[in-house]
C-alpha cells in the first residue's frame, strides 16, 4: 500500500468531517494510514455509528415479557413458546436500490436474512416495504418498481424463504429517493440463541462464504450516508451482486455449524464488510482481534489491504471458534461447498490489528473505532411553511361517489398488490396459513398448533402531515392488522427512513415520529426489539416524506382460527367495530384531489383503539366473526369493497353520513374495523366495544345507502379498477 499517508482531503472524501478527522488523529496519536482511515470512515459513518439517531433510539421501549433479545444484536427475538424464539428485523437498502434496483433490492433481502440466521434462527418469512415516485407519470419509478420487485423475488424465491407480505406506496417525494425496506422472520431453539460478542483469547477468527471482491467498496460511507446527487453514475461501479445460491449454502452451513455447537460467536458481513463485523465482535466481547487480510479468499488477487477490509461482497459470515474445532468447522463448510479460511485470532489487546502477510498495516483501539465516534444532538424545529408541494390532482371534485370509489380502488396506493406478490413464493416451507390478500396480516403456523402473525406498515403522507399522530396511526394499523387475524403483539421492529437530520425540520419529523413509536409501543405492550435507520434520503427537490416503517409480530393460539378479511357467507351481518372518526385530512381522496397536506391530523385516542383491537382479536379467536378488516387508506367505502372483492360476494350497508357523505365514505382514521358475522355474535361483540350494524353480506354488488344518496357498484366494476397495477407490469 502507498507509503504516503492520506490527508484531510481524503478523510472528507470518505465522509468524515474535519473535526472527526482531527479526533481520529488524536485517538491514533497521529494521522491514520490508508487502512486505518478507511476503517474509521466506515465505523464513524451515520450507517454504522448512528451519529444522529442514537440518543433518540435510546428513548424507545425495549422490554417486555416476551422479549428474549432486544436491539443491539443482529436481530431481535421474542419467545413464542415451547422453547422456540422468533427472530425478526427490518432493514433498508434504499440508496443501493436507487442506483441498481434489482441487485439493490436482492442484496437487501440477502442482508436481512443473514441477520436472522446469524443469531441461530432459520429464516421463515420475508416482507417488503417499498416507496416510489408517482408511477403513473414517472417512467423511472415504473422501472424501479419492476426491478426492485423482481430482485426481491429473485433472492427470496431462490433461497426458499417465503415472501408473505409487505406494502408499497407511490408519492412524489420518493421520486428521487425510493425506499426499499425488507423484513425477515426466523424461528429457532431458545437455548441455542447465538450472540456476536467475540470471546476466548486465542480463539480463531474464521471467515466463510463467498470470496471477497471489490463489490461496494466504500459502500457504507459513500452510498449509505451521502445525499444522492447528479453524479450517481460515479458510484455505480461499486454495485454489489447477490448470489442467492451462495447464500442458501451459507445459511444451511451456518445452521448446521450452530446446531453442532461448533461456534463461539457469529456475525454476518453486511455494510462495511469485514471492518464492521470484526470490530463489532471485538467491541461486544471487550477483546482485540488480529486479522491477516492475505488469508481472506479473494476474487481479485490484486486487492489492497484497505479494499479487503471495506469490501461489501455479499454472502459472507465471520465466526469465532475454538482452535480444536477448526477442522470440524471446515468439514461442514466443505460439505456445503462453502469456502472458509482462518484469518485471525482473538487477543486481549483491545486492539484491531490488521496484517498483510505478517506485516502490520493497521492498528486501532477497538474502543476508538466503535465507541468514540462523536454523537450529535438534533436541533428539531417545526417548519414554518409547508415542506411538500401539493400532489398533482387527478380528481377535480365534480365526480360522483361511484366515480370517486372507482378512482380510489384503482389508485396505485390502494389497487391490488397482486402483480407484486404474485412474483413471490409465499408458501415454501409449508407454514403459510394466510397469504397476501387473504387477511390483513400474514399468518405462519407453528409446530404446536399456534401461529405467528406479521404485518408491516407505513404511511409517509400522514406522517408528513403530522409526524406524531401520523406515526401513532402507523403503529396502531400494524396492531390492527394483527388483531384482524386474532393475534396479540409480541414485539415490534422499525425502520426510520428520513431526510437529512442535520436540517431542523427533518430533525423535528424524526423526533416526533420516535416519540410516537415509543408511546404507541408502550401502550400496545409491543416493545421494540430491533430496527434500522436510513437518513439523508433527500435530493435537491427536498426530503422524502418522513417514513417510519413498522413491522409487528404477534401470536395467535389456534392457527385454524386465523381471521380472514373477505366477507364469508350470504346473509351475515356487517358491522363497523371500534371508535372510528373519519376525516379527509391527508386521506387518499384528498391526495387524488391534489389537496395540500393539512397542518395536522385529528387527535388519536390510543386507549380506545387498543380496546377495539382487543375486542376484535378475541372475537376472531373465539370464532365469533367470519371476517375482519381494518379501515385504512380510502376509508370505510374502500374497506367494504376490499372485503367484498376478497370474498367474491357483495354487500348492502347503510351509513349515517350526517351532512358529509364524502367524509363518511372516504374519511380515514385509526381504530375502525369492518367485521361480518352472525347477528347474535355481533351483538355479543357489542358488549365489549362500540359496534354499529351496517347491513348484510350478499349479492354481486356493493351498495352504500347514505341517507341523502346511495352508492352502488357491481363487484365486476370494482374488480376491474382494483386490477389497475397490472398495467404497470405491462
Amino acid at each position, binding site marked *: 500500500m502507498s507509503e504516503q499517508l492520506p490527508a484531510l482531503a481524503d478523510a472528507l472524501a470518505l465522509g468524515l468531517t474535519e473535526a472527526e478527522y482531527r479526533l481520529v488523529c488524536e485517538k491514533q496519536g497521529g494521522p491514520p494510514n490508508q487502512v486505518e482511515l478507511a476503517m474509521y470512515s466506515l465505523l464513524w459513518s451515520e450507517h454504522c455509528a448512528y451519529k444522529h439517531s442514537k440518543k433518540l433510539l435510546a428513548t424507545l421501549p425495549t422490554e417486555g415479557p416476551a422479549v428474549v433479545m432486544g436491539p443491539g444484536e443482529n436481530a431481535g427475538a421474542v419467545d413464542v413458546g415451547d422453547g422456540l424464539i422468533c427472530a425478526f428485523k427490518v432493514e433498508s437498502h434504499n440508496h443501493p436500490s436507487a442506483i441498481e434496483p434489482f441487485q439493490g433490492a436482492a442484496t437487501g433481502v440477502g442482508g436481512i436474512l443473514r441477520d436472522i440466521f446469524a443469531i441461530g434462527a432459520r429464516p421463515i418469512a420475508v416482507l417488503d416495504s417499498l416507496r416510489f415516485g408517482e408511477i403513473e407519470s414517472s417512467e423511472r419509478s415504473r422501472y424501479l418498481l419492476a426491478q426492485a420487485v*423482481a430482485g426481491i423475488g429473485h433472492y427470496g424465491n431462490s433461497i*426458499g424463504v417465503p415472501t408473505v407480505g409487505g406494502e408499497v406506496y407511490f408519492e412524489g417525494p420518493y421520486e428521487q429517493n425510493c425506499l426499499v425496506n425488507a423484513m425477515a422472520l426466523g424461528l429457532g431453539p431458545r437455548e441455542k440463541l447465538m450472540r456476536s460478542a467475540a470471546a476466548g483469547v486465542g480463539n480463531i477468527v474464521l471467515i466463510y462464504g463467498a470470496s471477497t471482491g471489490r463489490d461496494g467498496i466504500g459502500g457504507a460511507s459513500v452510498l449509505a450516508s451521502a445525499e444522492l446527487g447528479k453524479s450517481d453514475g460515479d458510484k455505480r461501479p461499486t454495485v454489489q451482486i447477490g448470489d*442467492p445460491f451462495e447464500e442458501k449454502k451459507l445459511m444451511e452451513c451456518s445452521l448446521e455449524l450452530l446446531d453442532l455447537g461448533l461456534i463461539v460467536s457469529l456475525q454476518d458481513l453486511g455494510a462495511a464488510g469485514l471492518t464492521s463485523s470484526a470490530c463489532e465482535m471485538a467491541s461486544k466481547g471487550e477483546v482485540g482481534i488480529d486479522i491477516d487480510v492475505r488469508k481472506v479468499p479473494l476474487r481479485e488477487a490484486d486487492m489492497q489491504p484497505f479494499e479487503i477490509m471495506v469490501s461489501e461482497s455479499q454472502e459472507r459470515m465471520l465466526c469465532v471458534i475454538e482452535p480444536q474445532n477448526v477442522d470440524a468447522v471446515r468439514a461442514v463448510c466443505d460439505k456445503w461447498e462453502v469456502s472458509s479460511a482462518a484469518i485471525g485470532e482473538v487477543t486481549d489487546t483491545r486492539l484491531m490489528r490488521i496484517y498483510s502477510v505478517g506485516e502490520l498495516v493497521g492498528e486501532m483501539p477497538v474502543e476508538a473505532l466503535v465507541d468514540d465516534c462523536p454523537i450529535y444532538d438534533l436541533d428539531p424545529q417545526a417548519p414554518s411553511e409547508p415542506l411538500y408541494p401539493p400532489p398533482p390532482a387527478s380528481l377535480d371534485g365534480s365526480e360522483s361517489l361511484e366515480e370517486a370509489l372507482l378512482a380510489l380502488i384503482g389508485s396505485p396506493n390502494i389497487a391490488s398488490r397482486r402483480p407484486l406478490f404474485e412474483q413471490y413464493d409465499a408458501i415454501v*416451507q*409449508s407454514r403459510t396459513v394466510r397469504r397476501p390478500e387473504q387477511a390483513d396480516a400474514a399468518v405462519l403456523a407453528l409446530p404446536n398448533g399456534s401461529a405467528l402473525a406479521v404485518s408491516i406498515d407505513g404511511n409517509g403522507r400522514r406522517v408528513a402531515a403530522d409526524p406524531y399522530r401520523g406515526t401513532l396511526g402507523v403503529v396502531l394499523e400494524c396492531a390492527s392488522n394483527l388483531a384482524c387475524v386474532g393475534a396479540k403483539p409480541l414485539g415490534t421492529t422499525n425502520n426510520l427512513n428520513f431526510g437529512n437530520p442535520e436540517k431542523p425540520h427533518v430533525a423535528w419529523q424524526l423526533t416526533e415520529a420516535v416519540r410516537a413509536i415509543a408511546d404507541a409501543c408502550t401502550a400496545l405492550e409491543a416493545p421494540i426489539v430491533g430496527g434500522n435507520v436510513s437518513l439523508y434520503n433527500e435530493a435537491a427537490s427536498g426530503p422524502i416524506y418522513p417514513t417510519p416503517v413498522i413491522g409487528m409480530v404477534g401470536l395467535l393460539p389456534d392457527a385454524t382460527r386465523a381471521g380472514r378479511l373477505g366477507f364469508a357467507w350470504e346473509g351475515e351481518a356487517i358491522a363497523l367495530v371500534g371508535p372510528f372518526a373519519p376525516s379527509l385530512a391527508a386521506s387518499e381522496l384528498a391526495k387524488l384531489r391534489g389537496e395540500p397536506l393539512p397542518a395536522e391530523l385529528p387527535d388519536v385516542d390510543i386507549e380506545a383503539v387498543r380496546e377495539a383491537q382487543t375486542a376484535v382479536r378475541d372475537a376472531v379467536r373465539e370464532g365469533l366473526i367470519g371476517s375482519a378488516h381494518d379501515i385504512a387508506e380510502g376509508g370505510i367505502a374502500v374497506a367494504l369493497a376490499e372485503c367484498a372483492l376478497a370474498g367474491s360476494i357483495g354487500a348492502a350497508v347503510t351509513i349515517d353520513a350526517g351532512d358529509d357523505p364524502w367524509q363518511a365514505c372516504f374519511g380515514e382514521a385509526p381504530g375502525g374495523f369492518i367485521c361480518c358475522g352472525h347477528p347474535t355474535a355481533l351483538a355479543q361483540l357489542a358488549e365489549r366495544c362500540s359496534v354499529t350494524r351496517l347491513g348484510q353480506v350478499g349479492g354481486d354488488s356493493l351498495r352504500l345507502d347514505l341517507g341523502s344518496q346511495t352508492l352502488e357498484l357491481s363487484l365486476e366494476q370494482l374488480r376491474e379498477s382494483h386490477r389497475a397495477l397490472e398495467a404497470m407490469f405491462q
Partner: protein
Amino acid sequence: MKLGVLQFPGSCDEVDAQLAAQQVGDAVLLWHGDRDLQDVDGVIIPGGFSYGDYLRAGAIARFSPVMESVTEFARDGGLVLGICNGFQVLCEAGLLPGALLPNANRRFTFRQVDLEVVQPDTAFTSACPAGELLSIPAKHGSGRYYADDATLDRLEESGQVVVRYRPEQNFNGSLRDIAGVCNQAGNVFGLMPHPEHAVDALTGSTDGLRIFESMRTAVEGAHV
C-alpha cells in the same frame, strides 16, 4: 412404503415434499453427493434451485452423483416423481421428453391453478377422480413446456400427457397447456405445479395428496 426425496444444496421444497410423502408412508432425504438410494420404493426430485439453476434450470443438477443412481432406478422401473425443478431436472436428464423454457410472461409467477387430470390411469394419478380438477399451487420462472409437434402428438396419442392447465390459467405458455408428462413406461412423472403444497387444509387445499396416495397404491400393490 419408503420414498426418498433428493436434496441438492439449492433445493427449497425438499422438506415440504418429505412432509407430504410422510402422510402416506416413510420418507427420507437423499443427499445429492451420495449414490446410495437407501432401498427406497420411489424417488421424489423436489422443487427449488438445485445448483442455483444457473445456465438452465436443472442443467447442472442432472450430472450429480445421486442422479446417476436415479437414472438407473428409473430404467429399472422405479417410480420417480419430479416436481417443478425436479421436472426440469428430469427433462434435462432425458428421463422425460421435452424441455421447460422461461415463462411466457417473463416473470416468476406464483398462482393457485386448477389442474385437469387427463390421464388418471398412471402410478401417480390413479387416486384422482376422473374429470375432477385438482387445485394446486404453481410457482416458477421456467415452466413453459416445450417439445416439437411430432413429439407432442406422440405424447398425446400414447397418453403421456398426464395433467393440463385450464387454458385460461396457462400463464407460462406451455404448449397444449401441458402441466405434466410421464415417460412411455409410465414410471417417471414430472409436473410444474406443487402437489406437496396442497396436502393440508390449513395451508391451502388437500388435492395434492392424491398424487402421493396414488404412488402408495402403486408401490404397495407391487409388494403384495
